[in-house]
Protein backbone atom coordinates (compact mmCIF):
# COMPACT_ATOMS: atom_id res chain seq x y z
CA UNK A 1 0.00 0.00 0.00
CA UNK A 2 1.36 3.38 -0.99
CA UNK A 3 1.35 5.77 1.91
CA UNK A 4 3.26 9.03 1.52
CA UNK A 5 2.10 10.31 4.89
CA UNK A 6 4.90 10.99 7.36
CA UNK A 7 4.50 10.89 11.12
CA UNK A 8 6.32 14.16 11.76
CA UNK A 9 7.84 17.16 10.01
CA UNK A 10 11.27 15.88 11.06
CA UNK A 11 10.64 12.58 9.31
CA UNK A 12 9.30 14.45 6.29
CA UNK A 13 12.61 16.29 5.94
CA UNK A 14 14.89 13.27 6.15
CA UNK A 15 17.67 13.54 3.60
CA UNK A 16 18.01 17.31 3.25
CA UNK A 17 21.76 17.82 2.77
CA UNK A 18 24.15 20.71 3.14
CA UNK A 19 24.17 22.80 -0.04
CA UNK A 20 20.71 21.65 -1.19
CA UNK A 21 18.37 23.93 -3.09
CA UNK A 22 15.14 24.10 -1.10
CA UNK A 23 12.05 25.70 -2.63
CA UNK A 24 9.45 27.05 -0.23
CA UNK A 25 5.97 28.06 -1.33
CA UNK A 26 4.29 31.20 -0.10
CA UNK A 27 3.66 34.83 -0.91
CA UNK A 28 4.61 36.63 2.27
CA UNK A 29 2.86 34.53 4.92
CA UNK A 30 0.10 33.15 2.67
CA UNK A 31 0.98 29.57 1.77
CA UNK A 32 4.30 29.54 3.61
CA UNK A 33 4.91 26.02 5.03
CA UNK A 34 5.88 27.32 8.47
CA UNK A 35 5.90 23.96 10.26
CA UNK A 36 8.29 22.48 7.69
CA UNK A 37 10.57 25.50 7.84
CA UNK A 38 10.72 25.27 11.64
CA UNK A 39 11.63 21.60 11.24
CA UNK A 40 14.30 22.52 8.68
CA UNK A 41 15.90 24.77 11.28
CA UNK A 42 16.00 21.82 13.69
CA UNK A 43 17.18 19.46 10.95
CA UNK A 44 20.46 21.34 10.67
CA UNK A 45 21.36 21.41 6.95
CA UNK A 46 23.64 24.33 6.08
CA UNK A 47 24.70 26.32 3.01
CA UNK A 48 21.18 26.07 1.65
CA UNK A 49 19.94 27.83 -1.47
CA UNK A 50 16.39 28.96 -0.76
CA UNK A 51 13.87 29.68 -3.52
CA UNK A 52 10.92 31.75 -2.34
CA UNK A 53 9.06 34.81 -3.56
CA UNK A 54 10.26 36.84 -0.58
CA UNK A 55 13.17 36.78 1.83
CA UNK A 56 11.51 36.23 5.16
CA UNK A 57 9.36 38.30 7.47
CA UNK A 58 9.91 39.26 11.08
CA UNK A 59 11.90 36.77 13.12
CA UNK A 60 10.14 33.51 12.25
CA UNK A 61 10.06 31.09 9.31
CA UNK A 62 12.59 31.88 6.59
CA UNK A 63 13.91 34.83 8.61
CA UNK A 64 14.73 32.47 11.49
CA UNK A 65 16.43 30.02 9.09
CA UNK A 66 18.56 32.85 7.70
CA UNK A 67 19.28 34.24 11.16
CA UNK A 68 20.56 30.78 12.16
CA UNK A 69 23.15 31.19 9.39
CA UNK A 70 21.88 28.32 7.30
CA UNK A 71 21.21 30.05 4.01
CA UNK A 72 24.02 30.73 1.55
CA UNK A 73 21.87 32.18 -1.18
CA UNK A 74 18.29 33.19 -1.80
CA UNK A 75 16.56 33.27 -5.18
CA UNK A 76 13.52 35.54 -4.95
CA UNK A 77 11.62 38.40 -6.55
CA UNK A 78 10.88 40.70 -3.65
CA UNK A 79 13.26 40.58 -0.70
CA UNK A 80 12.69 44.11 0.57
CA UNK A 81 9.70 44.41 2.88
CA UNK A 82 8.84 46.42 5.95
CA UNK A 83 9.78 43.52 8.22
CA UNK A 84 12.59 41.85 6.27
CA UNK A 85 15.28 43.15 8.65
CA UNK A 86 17.01 39.76 9.05
CA UNK A 87 17.63 39.48 5.32
CA UNK A 88 18.47 43.19 5.01
CA UNK A 89 21.23 42.99 7.57
CA UNK A 90 22.72 39.73 6.21
CA UNK A 91 22.65 41.17 2.69
CA UNK A 92 24.24 44.46 3.68
CA UNK A 93 27.03 42.65 5.52
CA UNK A 94 27.67 40.38 2.52
CA UNK A 95 26.65 37.22 4.38
CA UNK A 96 23.97 36.13 1.94
CA UNK A 97 23.89 36.02 -1.83
CA UNK A 98 20.80 37.31 -3.65
CA UNK A 99 19.61 36.27 -7.10
CA UNK A 100 16.82 38.67 -7.92
CA UNK A 101 14.33 37.34 -10.49
CA UNK A 102 11.19 39.05 -11.83
CA UNK A 103 8.27 37.24 -10.25
CA UNK A 104 6.82 35.78 -13.44
CA UNK A 105 10.24 34.61 -14.58
CA UNK A 106 10.70 32.99 -11.18
CA UNK A 107 7.39 31.10 -11.49
CA UNK A 108 8.09 30.10 -15.09
CA UNK A 109 11.68 29.00 -14.41
CA UNK A 110 10.34 26.74 -11.67
CA UNK A 111 7.55 25.48 -13.93
CA UNK A 112 10.08 24.84 -16.70
CA UNK A 113 12.16 22.68 -14.37
CA UNK A 114 9.08 20.66 -13.49
CA UNK A 115 8.01 20.33 -17.10
CA UNK A 116 11.40 19.26 -18.44
CA UNK A 117 11.96 22.46 -20.40
CA UNK A 118 15.62 23.45 -20.83
CA UNK A 119 14.90 27.16 -20.89
CA UNK A 120 12.63 29.68 -22.53
CA UNK A 121 12.62 33.11 -24.14
CA UNK A 122 10.58 35.66 -22.19
CA UNK A 123 9.90 39.34 -22.89
CA UNK A 124 9.98 40.12 -19.17
CA UNK A 125 13.10 42.02 -18.17
CA UNK A 126 14.39 42.59 -21.70
CA UNK A 127 16.65 45.64 -21.76
CA UNK A 128 16.82 45.90 -17.97
CA UNK A 129 19.61 45.32 -15.47
CA UNK A 130 18.11 41.93 -14.58
CA UNK A 131 18.73 40.64 -18.11
CA UNK A 132 22.32 41.85 -18.31
CA UNK A 133 24.64 39.23 -19.81
CA UNK A 134 21.79 36.95 -20.81
CA UNK A 135 21.18 35.65 -24.32
CA UNK A 136 18.52 37.57 -26.22
CA UNK A 137 16.60 36.89 -29.40
CA UNK A 138 14.16 38.78 -31.58
CA UNK A 139 11.20 36.58 -32.48
CA UNK A 140 8.51 37.93 -34.82
CA UNK A 141 9.62 41.47 -34.08
CA UNK A 142 9.62 41.20 -30.31
CA UNK A 143 12.69 41.02 -28.07
CA UNK A 144 13.10 38.19 -25.59
CA UNK A 145 15.58 37.09 -22.90
CA UNK A 146 16.64 33.49 -22.39
CA UNK A 147 15.92 32.14 -18.91
CA UNK A 148 16.91 28.75 -17.53
CA UNK A 149 14.99 26.37 -15.26
CA UNK A 150 15.36 26.32 -11.47
CA UNK A 151 15.44 22.81 -10.07
CA UNK A 152 15.00 22.03 -6.40
CA UNK A 153 16.44 19.23 -4.33
CA UNK A 154 13.48 19.69 -2.02
CA UNK A 155 10.24 21.64 -2.35
CA UNK A 156 8.44 22.43 0.88
CA UNK A 157 4.89 23.47 0.14
CA UNK A 158 1.69 24.13 2.02
CA UNK A 159 -1.70 22.79 0.99
CA UNK A 160 -5.08 22.51 2.66
CA UNK A 161 -5.81 18.81 2.25
CA UNK A 162 -4.02 15.79 0.88
CA UNK A 163 -4.48 12.04 0.66
CA UNK A 164 -2.01 9.18 1.04
CA UNK A 165 -1.25 9.22 -2.69
CA UNK A 166 -0.21 12.85 -2.43
CA UNK A 167 -3.13 14.49 -4.23
CA UNK A 168 -3.52 18.06 -2.99
CA UNK A 169 -6.00 20.90 -2.82
CA UNK A 170 -5.11 24.37 -1.61
CA UNK A 171 -6.81 27.21 0.21
CA UNK A 172 -7.55 30.51 -1.55
CA UNK A 173 -4.50 32.57 -2.58
CA UNK A 174 -2.26 30.42 -0.38
CA UNK A 175 -1.96 28.24 -3.49
CA UNK A 176 0.50 30.63 -5.20
CA UNK A 177 3.84 28.85 -5.84
CA UNK A 178 2.82 25.45 -4.42
CA UNK A 179 1.72 23.69 -7.61
CA UNK A 180 4.77 24.75 -9.68
CA UNK A 181 7.30 24.08 -6.93
CA UNK A 182 5.77 20.65 -6.36
CA UNK A 183 6.71 19.75 -9.94
CA UNK A 184 10.25 21.08 -9.80
CA UNK A 185 11.98 19.21 -6.97
CA UNK A 186 13.57 15.81 -6.53
CA UNK A 187 11.60 15.46 -3.30
CA UNK A 188 8.42 17.44 -2.65
CA UNK A 189 7.09 17.59 0.89
CA UNK A 190 3.61 18.96 1.48
CA UNK A 191 2.48 20.32 4.80
CA UNK A 192 -1.30 19.93 4.91
CA UNK A 193 -3.88 20.98 7.44
CA UNK A 194 -5.62 17.66 7.10
CA UNK A 195 -5.08 14.24 5.58
CA UNK A 196 -8.23 12.79 4.06
CA UNK A 197 -9.00 9.23 2.85
CA UNK A 198 -8.39 8.30 -0.78
CA UNK A 199 -11.46 9.28 -2.74
CA UNK A 200 -12.42 12.13 -0.45
CA UNK A 201 -10.89 14.68 -2.83
CA UNK A 202 -13.05 15.15 -5.90
CA UNK A 203 -10.78 14.10 -8.79
CA UNK A 204 -12.16 17.03 -10.79
CA UNK A 205 -10.85 19.39 -8.11
CA UNK A 206 -7.41 17.95 -7.40
CA UNK A 207 -4.95 20.80 -8.09
CA UNK A 208 -1.66 18.96 -7.62
CA UNK A 209 -1.81 15.27 -8.62
CA UNK A 210 0.10 12.95 -6.32
CA UNK A 211 2.83 12.17 -8.86
CA UNK A 212 4.41 15.50 -7.90
CA UNK A 213 4.28 14.89 -4.15
CA UNK A 214 6.60 12.47 -2.36
CA UNK A 215 5.79 13.07 1.29
CA UNK A 216 2.92 14.61 3.24
CA UNK A 217 2.63 15.62 6.83
CA UNK A 218 -0.52 16.79 8.60
CA UNK A 219 0.01 19.74 10.92
CA UNK A 220 -3.53 20.79 11.83
CA UNK A 221 -5.31 23.98 10.90
CA UNK A 222 -2.87 26.68 9.91
CA UNK A 223 -4.79 29.54 8.36
CA UNK A 224 -2.11 32.12 7.71
CA UNK A 225 -1.78 34.81 10.32
CA UNK A 226 -1.21 38.42 9.51
CA UNK A 227 1.78 40.49 10.46
CA UNK A 228 2.26 41.44 14.09
CA UNK A 229 0.87 44.92 14.79
CA UNK A 230 3.52 47.63 14.51
CA UNK A 231 5.01 48.78 17.79
CA UNK A 232 2.69 51.24 19.46
CA UNK A 233 -0.22 50.27 17.19
CA UNK A 234 -3.44 49.11 18.73
CA UNK A 235 -3.91 45.39 18.27
Amino acid at each position, binding site marked *: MIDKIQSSCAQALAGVRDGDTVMTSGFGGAGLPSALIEALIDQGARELVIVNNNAGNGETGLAALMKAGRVRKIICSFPRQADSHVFDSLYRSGKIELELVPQGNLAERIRAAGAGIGGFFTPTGY*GTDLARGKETRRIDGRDYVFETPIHGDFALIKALRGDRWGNLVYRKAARNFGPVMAMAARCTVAQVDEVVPLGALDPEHVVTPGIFVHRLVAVGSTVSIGPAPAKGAKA
Partner: protein
Amino acid sequence: MKKLSRDQMAARVARDIPEGAYVNLGIGLPTQVANHLPTDREVFLHSENGILGMGPAPAPGQEDWDLVNAGKQPVTLLTGGAYFHHADSFAMMRGGHLDICVLGAFQVSATGDLANWHTGGADAIPAVGGAMDLAIGAKRTFVMMEHVTKSGEHKIVERCSYPLTGIGCVARIYTDLAVIDVTPQGLVAIEWVEGLSLSDLQSLTGAPLRAPA
Protein backbone atom coordinates in the same frame (compact mmCIF):
# COMPACT_ATOMS: atom_id res chain seq x y z
CA MET B 1 -4.19 75.88 -11.46
CA LYS B 2 -6.04 73.10 -9.70
CA LYS B 3 -3.89 70.03 -9.25
CA LEU B 4 -5.81 66.79 -8.99
CA SER B 5 -5.87 65.11 -5.60
CA ARG B 6 -4.84 61.47 -5.45
CA ASP B 7 -8.50 60.52 -5.26
CA GLN B 8 -9.28 62.62 -8.33
CA MET B 9 -6.41 60.99 -10.20
CA ALA B 10 -7.78 57.56 -9.29
CA ALA B 11 -11.26 58.61 -10.44
CA ARG B 12 -9.83 59.86 -13.74
CA VAL B 13 -8.09 56.54 -14.42
CA ALA B 14 -11.26 54.65 -13.45
CA ARG B 15 -13.18 56.53 -16.18
CA ASP B 16 -10.98 54.83 -18.80
CA ILE B 17 -11.55 51.28 -17.56
CA PRO B 18 -14.49 49.82 -19.48
CA GLU B 19 -16.94 47.13 -18.50
CA GLY B 20 -15.52 43.66 -19.00
CA ALA B 21 -11.87 44.70 -18.77
CA TYR B 22 -9.35 42.40 -17.08
CA VAL B 23 -7.23 44.77 -15.02
CA ASN B 24 -4.25 44.64 -12.71
CA LEU B 25 -3.82 47.58 -10.34
CA GLY B 26 -0.30 48.04 -8.99
CA ILE B 27 0.66 48.60 -5.39
CA GLY B 28 0.16 52.08 -3.92
CA LEU B 29 -1.80 54.81 -5.68
CA PRO B 30 -3.09 52.52 -8.50
CA THR B 31 -4.85 50.36 -5.89
CA GLN B 32 -7.14 53.33 -5.18
CA VAL B 33 -8.56 53.16 -8.71
CA ALA B 34 -10.73 50.25 -7.52
CA ASN B 35 -12.59 52.61 -5.17
CA HIS B 36 -13.77 54.66 -8.14
CA LEU B 37 -15.08 51.93 -10.42
CA PRO B 38 -18.88 52.29 -10.52
CA THR B 39 -20.58 49.32 -8.84
CA ASP B 40 -22.73 48.65 -11.91
CA ARG B 41 -19.65 48.21 -14.14
CA GLU B 42 -18.27 44.67 -14.13
CA VAL B 43 -14.47 44.84 -14.19
CA PHE B 44 -12.27 41.83 -13.42
CA LEU B 45 -9.46 42.73 -11.04
CA HIS B 46 -6.42 40.47 -11.22
CA SER B 47 -3.90 40.04 -8.41
CA GLU B 48 -0.49 38.61 -9.28
CA ASN B 49 -0.61 36.11 -6.42
CA GLY B 50 -3.38 34.15 -8.10
CA ILE B 51 -6.74 35.92 -7.93
CA LEU B 52 -9.24 37.03 -10.57
CA GLY B 53 -12.36 38.79 -9.37
CA MET B 54 -10.65 40.41 -6.43
CA GLY B 55 -13.01 42.39 -4.21
CA PRO B 56 -12.48 45.17 -1.67
CA ALA B 57 -10.89 44.91 1.76
CA PRO B 58 -12.91 42.86 4.25
CA ALA B 59 -14.66 44.41 7.25
CA PRO B 60 -12.42 44.69 10.32
CA GLY B 61 -12.23 41.31 12.03
CA GLN B 62 -13.05 39.45 8.81
CA GLU B 63 -9.49 39.35 7.47
CA ASP B 64 -8.33 36.05 5.97
CA TRP B 65 -4.55 36.06 5.55
CA ASP B 66 -4.74 33.33 2.91
CA LEU B 67 -6.58 35.90 0.79
CA VAL B 68 -4.29 38.87 0.28
CA ASN B 69 -3.39 41.19 -2.61
CA ALA B 70 0.01 41.91 -4.16
CA GLY B 71 0.75 44.29 -1.30
CA LYS B 72 -0.05 41.41 1.10
CA GLN B 73 -3.08 43.25 2.47
CA PRO B 74 -6.30 41.29 3.09
CA VAL B 75 -8.89 41.40 0.32
CA THR B 76 -12.07 39.53 -0.61
CA LEU B 77 -13.19 37.46 -3.58
CA LEU B 78 -16.22 38.51 -5.60
CA THR B 79 -18.85 35.93 -6.47
CA GLY B 80 -17.54 34.27 -9.62
CA GLY B 81 -13.90 34.92 -8.75
CA ALA B 82 -11.19 32.28 -9.07
CA TYR B 83 -7.83 31.22 -7.65
CA PHE B 84 -4.89 29.83 -9.66
CA HIS B 85 -1.18 29.23 -9.25
CA HIS B 86 1.64 31.65 -9.90
CA ALA B 87 2.69 30.36 -13.32
CA ASP B 88 -0.88 30.74 -14.60
CA SER B 89 -1.16 34.15 -12.99
CA PHE B 90 1.90 35.44 -14.80
CA ALA B 91 0.84 33.73 -18.02
CA MET B 92 -2.21 36.00 -17.82
CA MET B 93 0.17 38.98 -17.89
CA ARG B 94 2.93 37.83 -20.19
CA GLY B 95 0.50 36.13 -22.53
CA GLY B 96 -1.30 39.42 -23.19
CA HIS B 97 -4.58 38.37 -21.58
CA LEU B 98 -4.91 41.38 -19.29
CA ASP B 99 -6.42 44.41 -20.95
CA ILE B 100 -5.03 47.10 -18.68
CA CYS B 101 -2.46 47.39 -15.98
CA VAL B 102 -2.01 50.54 -13.92
CA LEU B 103 1.38 51.17 -12.34
CA GLY B 104 3.17 53.83 -10.37
CA ALA B 105 6.47 55.18 -11.67
CA PHE B 106 9.63 57.07 -10.81
CA GLN B 107 10.10 58.06 -14.45
CA VAL B 108 8.54 57.53 -17.88
CA SER B 109 10.45 58.37 -21.06
CA ALA B 110 9.20 60.00 -24.26
CA THR B 111 9.20 56.56 -25.90
CA GLY B 112 7.29 54.87 -23.09
CA ASP B 113 10.18 53.34 -21.19
CA LEU B 114 9.23 52.80 -17.56
CA ALA B 115 11.39 53.05 -14.44
CA ASN B 116 9.53 52.07 -11.31
CA TRP B 117 11.37 49.30 -9.47
CA HIS B 118 14.69 50.58 -8.19
CA THR B 119 16.32 53.92 -7.51
CA GLY B 120 19.70 52.36 -8.24
CA GLY B 121 21.05 53.69 -4.94
CA ALA B 122 24.15 51.79 -3.83
CA ASP B 123 22.66 50.97 -0.44
CA ALA B 124 19.14 50.21 -1.70
CA ILE B 125 18.14 46.55 -1.55
CA PRO B 126 16.69 45.76 -4.97
CA ALA B 127 13.23 44.20 -5.12
CA VAL B 128 11.36 43.78 -8.39
CA GLY B 129 8.37 41.57 -7.63
CA GLY B 130 5.98 41.48 -10.57
CA ALA B 131 6.82 44.95 -11.89
CA MET B 132 8.71 43.84 -15.00
CA ASP B 133 6.09 41.23 -15.91
CA LEU B 134 3.27 43.72 -15.46
CA ALA B 135 5.01 46.47 -17.42
CA ILE B 136 5.28 44.42 -20.60
CA GLY B 137 2.35 42.06 -20.13
CA ALA B 138 -0.93 43.91 -20.38
CA LYS B 139 -2.42 45.04 -23.69
CA ARG B 140 -2.21 48.62 -22.37
CA THR B 141 0.01 49.80 -19.52
CA PHE B 142 -1.12 52.98 -17.79
CA VAL B 143 1.13 54.90 -15.44
CA MET B 144 -0.25 57.08 -12.69
CA MET B 145 2.08 59.39 -10.82
CA GLU B 146 2.68 62.96 -9.70
CA HIS B 147 3.76 65.07 -12.67
CA VAL B 148 7.03 66.15 -11.01
CA THR B 149 8.90 65.01 -7.90
CA LYS B 150 8.45 66.69 -4.52
CA SER B 151 11.54 68.76 -5.27
CA GLY B 152 10.18 69.70 -8.70
CA GLU B 153 12.28 67.43 -10.91
CA HIS B 154 10.79 66.06 -14.10
CA LYS B 155 9.39 62.54 -13.98
CA ILE B 156 8.46 62.54 -17.67
CA VAL B 157 11.85 62.61 -19.36
CA GLU B 158 13.64 62.08 -22.67
CA ARG B 159 15.47 59.07 -21.25
CA CYS B 160 15.06 57.45 -17.85
CA SER B 161 18.01 57.87 -15.50
CA TYR B 162 16.72 55.23 -13.06
CA PRO B 163 17.07 51.51 -13.86
CA LEU B 164 14.44 50.43 -16.39
CA THR B 165 11.49 48.18 -15.65
CA GLY B 166 10.46 47.81 -19.29
CA ILE B 167 11.16 49.32 -22.70
CA GLY B 168 8.52 51.16 -24.72
CA CYS B 169 5.74 49.66 -22.62
CA VAL B 170 3.73 52.67 -21.38
CA ALA B 171 0.63 53.62 -23.38
CA ARG B 172 -0.73 56.48 -21.28
CA ILE B 173 0.38 58.62 -18.34
CA TYR B 174 -2.06 60.06 -15.78
CA THR B 175 -0.62 62.74 -13.53
CA ASP B 176 -2.00 65.29 -11.12
CA LEU B 177 -1.77 67.80 -13.98
CA ALA B 178 -2.50 66.00 -17.24
CA VAL B 179 -3.27 62.90 -19.24
CA ILE B 180 -0.58 62.16 -21.80
CA ASP B 181 -0.53 59.51 -24.52
CA VAL B 182 2.71 57.87 -25.62
CA THR B 183 2.50 57.62 -29.41
CA PRO B 184 4.97 56.63 -32.12
CA GLN B 185 5.18 60.37 -32.89
CA GLY B 186 6.00 61.28 -29.28
CA LEU B 187 4.04 62.45 -26.26
CA VAL B 188 0.60 63.92 -26.84
CA ALA B 189 -1.10 65.83 -24.03
CA ILE B 190 -4.76 64.95 -24.36
CA GLU B 191 -6.04 66.94 -21.38
CA TRP B 192 -4.66 69.12 -18.61
CA VAL B 193 -6.04 70.81 -15.53
CA GLU B 194 -7.86 74.11 -15.49
CA GLY B 195 -5.67 77.17 -15.13
CA LEU B 196 -2.68 75.53 -16.78
CA SER B 197 -1.62 76.22 -20.36
CA LEU B 198 0.03 73.67 -22.60
CA SER B 199 3.22 75.73 -22.43
CA ASP B 200 3.05 75.70 -18.61
CA LEU B 201 2.66 71.94 -18.80
CA GLN B 202 5.58 71.70 -21.20
CA SER B 203 7.81 73.55 -18.74
CA LEU B 204 7.04 70.90 -16.14
CA THR B 205 7.74 68.05 -18.56
CA GLY B 206 11.20 66.83 -19.55
CA ALA B 207 10.29 65.75 -23.07
CA PRO B 208 8.45 67.50 -25.92
CA LEU B 209 4.64 67.51 -25.73
CA ARG B 210 2.25 67.98 -28.58
CA ALA B 211 -1.34 69.10 -28.48
CA PRO B 212 -3.95 66.63 -29.64
CA ALA B 213 -4.43 66.58 -33.42
